[in-house]
């Protein structure tokens, strides 16, 4: 009876059609277009017909090799040294441009490792992409644990029975409702090397001992500064998700723990933490997905500089796809990004399923 009442193919389809159509056109279709374009030489505007190029874009992006270099020997048979007493090695460029080594063609030095006198040079077809990939992975690897941990700390602070604690919750959450673009420009002023607030503050706290740092203009500090700012902006968001998780833990468990005379740490270890397991996975996955997609901060603060030290995957995808109108190159990076995000999501599924 009730089944009959709620069966209606026409109305059902009609009501769902607009949203299905929009999601199909503007999410699902471009997703498959990304995969398709990454196998072609598609450009935004081009007089030539688009060609299928197979895995060429991926080879251009991910091509890596290692060149083993032995130091040069001088005429007298000893190892040659330059003015500073450093060993001299053959120029990498002489190998990547030589016809004897087709496997190195078009590659540039990414970095080198010394083992004894031998130098191992890692060469990449696309050094900038490799830096973007590594920076993005660093961004994720630092942000995920630090932001999740700090957010949990804040949630525990807010979760105590104190008068007026909700005022503090409101303040901690404030930066979340401020645009990351606004925050990035504001922090450019805070990080400024000449008259930035941070340098002035540190100098004041150390009675002038602290030497000013150009936070965003220095290859050693730029990425870390952007990570710190991103955490400051988003940590309140994850605090709220932790809080929602904390509220699902039955109070009777805490009462039982109190009767048993368990210490604060024991209560956290045996009552609170086990009850937060699923929340923990969720928080980590959401942070990871957000961190992989980092773009606005980079575009507003550093444009990938100094010296590519803050390049990221999405910044590179946009620079190619939009800046150079190389749709296929941008799409290829997008597919690589998606594969990374998918791997994280599958890992999440695996970890949550294991316990149920």
């Amino acid at each position, binding site marked *: 009876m*009730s089944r009959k*009442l*709620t069966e*209606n193919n026409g*109305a*059902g*389809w009609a*009501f*769902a059609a607009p*949203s*299905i159509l929009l*999601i199909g*056109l*503007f*999410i*699902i279709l*471009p*997703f498959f*277009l*990304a995969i398709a*374009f990454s196998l072609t030489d*598609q450009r*935004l505007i081009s007089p030539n017909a688009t060609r299928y190029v197979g895995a060429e874009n991926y080879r251009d992006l991910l091509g890596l090799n290692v060149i083993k270099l032995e130091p040069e020997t001088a005429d007298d048979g000893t190892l040659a040294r330059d003015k500073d007493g450093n060993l001299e090695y053959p120029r990498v460029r002489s190998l990547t441009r030589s016809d004897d080594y087709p496997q190195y063609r078009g590659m540039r030095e990414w970095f080198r490792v010394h083992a004894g006198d031998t130098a191992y040079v890692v060469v990449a077809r696309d050094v900038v992409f490799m830096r973007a990939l590594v920076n993005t992975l660093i961004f994720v690897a630092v942000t995920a644990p630090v932001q999740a941990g700090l957010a949990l700390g804040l949630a525990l602070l807010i979760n105590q029975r*104190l008068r007026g604690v909700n005022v503090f919750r*409101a*303040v901690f959450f*404030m930066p*979340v*409702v*401020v*645009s*990351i*673009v*606004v925050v990035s*420009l*504001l*922090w450019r002023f*805070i990080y400024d090397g000449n008259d930035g*607030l941070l340098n002035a503050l540190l100098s*004041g706290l150390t009675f002038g001992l602290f030497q000013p740092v150009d936070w965003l203009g220095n290859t050693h500090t730029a990425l870390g500064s952007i990570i710190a700012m991103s955490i400051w902006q988003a940590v309140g968001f994850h605090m*709220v*998700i932790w809080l*929602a998780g904390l509220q699902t833990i039955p109070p009777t468990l805490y009462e039982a723990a109190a009767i048993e005379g368990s210490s604060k740490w024991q209560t956290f270890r045996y009552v609170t933490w086990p009850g937060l397991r*699923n*929340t923990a996975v969720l928080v980590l996955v959401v942070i990871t997905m957000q961190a992989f*997609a980092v*773009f*606005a901060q980079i*575009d*507003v603060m550093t444009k990938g500089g100094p010296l590519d030290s803050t390049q990221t995957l*999405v910044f590179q995808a*946009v620079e190619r*796809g*939009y800046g150079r109108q190389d*749709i296929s190159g941008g799409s290829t990076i*997008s597919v690589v*990004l*998606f594969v990374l*995000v998918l791997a994280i*999501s599958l890992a999440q599924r695996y970890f949550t399923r294991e316990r149920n």
Partner: protein
Amino acid sequence: MAAISNDNHGLRLAVRYLVLLLVALVFLLPLLFMVMSSLKPDNQLLNDTSSLRAFLPVGDISLENYAGAFRRAPIGLFVFNSVMVTTITVLASLFLCSLGAFSFTFVRWRGNAVVLSIVLATLIIPFETIAIPLLLFVSRLPWIGLDGFSWGWLNTYRVQIIPWIADALTIFLFVQYFKDLPRELIEAARAEGASWWQIYRRVVMPLSGPVIATAAILKALKMYNEQYLWPLIVVQDEAHRPIMVGLGYFFQLNVPWGEVMAYLSMITVPVLVFYLVLQRAFIASIASTGVKG
């Protein structure tokens, strides 16, 4: 149970509040710095950073930076663009996503479950991974407007609105909420011969205040605050530029920091006020995105 002396208890309480207060300052001071800086002339602004004056409305306070920012860029236009795009997208999204979720939840039709799971699967596609192919796609889409037939959606309002109307998260939020509504209501209305449209309009939507608020807040924040990458690549002309892309005017080498802070305050303070008034709804909406289906 040892009796705790009152002194000790008071001290512990004081320490707790002190910790909360110090953490609160970390979040508050940069925002306070932004607003206060927007009220000061540049030379004073740079001097003030070396003392607590940076966070206080002291010295030569005026709205001159705001006037300067308006002279530098067509800010009124940017704000209008953002508010309009946000409003239309939020309203269209609430309507079409709730209608879709209503159909997925209450109406039985062939393929219902399969289509819903395909829709929800798109949750794992970050927008950043489809932006570039979507740029090419919208650049070649046709349109029939008041001035007839045309090709290409670049430099328009529609390119900032239509792709953002339907999304899996909004549909998911409505489906979650609708599932908890008593089914008897729907069946009783059906038995009395009400049409699906009447049930949606008269029975389900009037009961859905909380989820409408949640979906509206999330979408509005996304459209007003976070629309940067997309308009950056599909809108080059000034006429259709939203606020966050309008910031580009303040990227020059000799940045007049006071004006920058004025612009930032102008587009941020209204949102913060809105948030402080509707604090519970904002926080509940974020918490609900963490609910697992």
